[in-house]
């Protein structure tokens, strides 16, 4: 309790929900943004760009389906380059959603209530983008169902000893659990949307999705229980999914991939990039829809802190890689690291250090963390940095392996870039569609915060 008094005198933090908001205004604002607010102009303009990218996306998929993966710059030895880079990048971005929904829930971090819905939607869309890359990279996309073990007329099972099949399980589990989490969390809000809708067809659609929610004590009791159970289910996934993704590399014998540090270092990177993406998307959404009452500067400050913490772990990972290469005493490890830093792809490594090693150091300063423009720019730099990280790991390790006679360079083609930028278009487009039809902030979870507002929220103060 003494502690409580102490913090009170130190600094009174900004409330998590603006004082002017009441139970009524919260529903009116968030539900009204979907039902009544005219789509903001800035959103329409960016939607046009996004839709253009969506066409590029369709075109790039069409090119691969029609002409095969030969349209990409892949070769021997670089058998996969952008595909796996983008896959890992997107899966990583998805991790913020689950972390925010599950782990922060279990840790009673109530500030998550303002961002979990949005982050979960982002997770779903990011995982959809991610899954596309390996599915297209198989080359015979019409046989992709072979990735799933099922009793077939070939008398064959998938190769359970391959990390690539672990990936299939990890990602599909992740998608399923994330969807369940997102949907279950939406049910009370869908009922609110049903009740706030003015048109009959809207009432019917939201009504079906709300699955008969009436907000009775029974409903709430079951809801809370199932949400908690789902959080428990999702929590190990935050760690396991990206660990499994890292096994794609770590289980192989290639210098630059064969490293035991990969799982933790990948998980930290995933959360790092996920929070960067949440910030990138949240800042414009907050401005366009005037959500400053719910997503305060304090929220952004917290997210920036998590980004800083995970960013430092990632940077530590880079330093460890350097040390391992030196300490291994292996000629091939030495060469790999030298080639990574000074070889033909030197620019990607140094850019990576700039984006992921140096830039996040700015977040030590509160002035930077609360400067919206600067934070937005940093989040984009981090997104780029995390993409470069995967590019560096994949391409610089593959293109010069043990045997100099098999060395080659990877040059991305227009279709490599097209598909990558296309998925960004697809992703943002889905986010826009989501924002237009679903409450992007959890209405009832924001209401939970009302009695708390203005207090420092930590677990020890829970009883108070």
């Amino acid at each position, binding site marked *: 309790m003494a502690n409580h008094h102490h913090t009170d005198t130190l600094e009174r933090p900004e409330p998590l929900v603006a004082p002017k908001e009441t139970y009524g205004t919260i529903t009116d604002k968030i539900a009204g943004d979907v039902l009544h607010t005219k789509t903001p102009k800035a959103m329409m303009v960016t939607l046009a760009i996004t839709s253009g990218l969506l066409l590029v996306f369709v075109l790039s998929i069409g090119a691969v389906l029609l002409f095969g993966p030969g349209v990409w710059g892949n070769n021997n030895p670089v058998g996969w380059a952008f595909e796996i880079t983008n896959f890992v990048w997107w899966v990583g971005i998805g991790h913020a959603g689950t972390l925010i929904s599950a782990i922060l829930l279990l840790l009673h971090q109530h500030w998550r209530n303002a961002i979990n819905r949005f982050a979960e939607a982002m997770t779903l869309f990011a995982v959809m983008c991610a899954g596309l890359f390996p599915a297209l990279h198989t080359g015979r996309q019409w046989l992709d169902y072979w990735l799933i073990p099922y009793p077939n007329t*070939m008398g064959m099972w998938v190769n359970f000893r391959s990390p690539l099949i672990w990936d299939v399980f990890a990602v599909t589990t992740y998608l399923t659990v994330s969807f369940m989490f997102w949907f279950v969390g939406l049910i009370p809000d869908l009922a609110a949307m*049903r009740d706030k809708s003015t048109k009959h067809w809207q009432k*019917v659609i939201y*009504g079906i999705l709300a699955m008969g929610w009436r907000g009775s004590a029974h409903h709430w009791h079951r809801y809370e229980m199932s949400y908690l159970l789902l959080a428990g289910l999702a929590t190990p996934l935050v760690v396991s999914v990206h660990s499994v993704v890292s096994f794609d590399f770590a289980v192989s014998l290639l210098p630059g991939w064969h490293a035991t540090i990969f799982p933790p270092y990948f998980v930290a990177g995933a959360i790092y990039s996920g929070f960067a993406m949440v910030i990138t998307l949240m800042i414009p959404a907050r401005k366009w829809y005037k959500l400053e009452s719910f997503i305060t500067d304090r929220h952004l400050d917290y997210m920036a802190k998590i980004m800083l913490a995970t960013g430092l772990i990632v940077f530590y990972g880079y330093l460890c890689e350097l040390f391992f290469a030196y300490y291994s005493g292996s000629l091939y490890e030495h060469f790999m690291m030298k080639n990574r830093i000074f070889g033909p792809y030197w620019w990607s490594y140094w850019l990576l250090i700039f984006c992921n090693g140096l830039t996040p150091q700015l977040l030590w300063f509160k002035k930077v963390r609360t400067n919206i423009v600067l934070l937005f720019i940093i989040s984009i730099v981090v997104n780029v940095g995390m993409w470069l990280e995967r590019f560096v790991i994949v391409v610089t390790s593959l293109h010069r392996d043990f045997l100099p006679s098999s060395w080659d360079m990877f040059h991305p083609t227009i279709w490599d870039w097209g598909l990558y930028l296309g998925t960004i278009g697809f992703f943002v487009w889905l986010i826009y569609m989501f924002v237009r039809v679903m409450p992007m902030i959890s209405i009832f979870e924001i209401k939970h915060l009302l009695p708390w507002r203005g207090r420092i929220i930590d677990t020890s103060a829970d009883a108070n």
Partner: protein
Amino acid sequence: MAQIFHPSMRVVSRASILASLIVIGFIGWVGWDWYRSGYFTGVNVPVEQPVPFSHEHHVNGLGISCGYCHTSVEKAAFAGIPPTHTCMTCHSQIWTGAPMLEPVRASYRTQKPLEWVRVHDLPDFAYFNHSIHVNKGMACQVCHGDVNIMPLTWKSSTLQMAWCLDCHRAPEKYIRPVEEIYNFDYKPPADQIAFGKELVKKYNVQVKQLTDCSICHR
């Protein structure tokens, strides 16, 4: 406020959960059966040929052995489809005027081979070799069924990979002495598995290799 849904929706919505499970199960069941049905695999479906050739008549009725017509079965990948001359060794003497055999005579006159329709057509990515199978005690009957009682010719096996692997994983289930490969009346001994294992050893069949991808997909 008026109700959006009729009270009956309470039952409908719950039933729809059950119904979706049933529909998914039904689709799975149809898919399962479809890919194993004669309609898809061609098993037990007679194939129309230029001449309605009866294996039953020639094998059971006349006692001609498989190798008389399918001459390369012990030496080559392909068992061989007999040339018109093989037919004419007999049919230049008997049934010389039968209208049913006119395509055979026409082929002989014009020197144009009969165009038999293939019954057992493996995909091109599977390399099948008859000689290795018959020389290691895999009888014609094991894969082609009771051809000796087929008035027209049809497949008796699916030729699906699971079917290949059934034997490649455990050849002792089907192997028999090489002298018996053309014998349609062969009865496997009661202790086929033990006997089969002996034969597998005797014929030096490397069971471990039989499930290597490259054994069939080269």
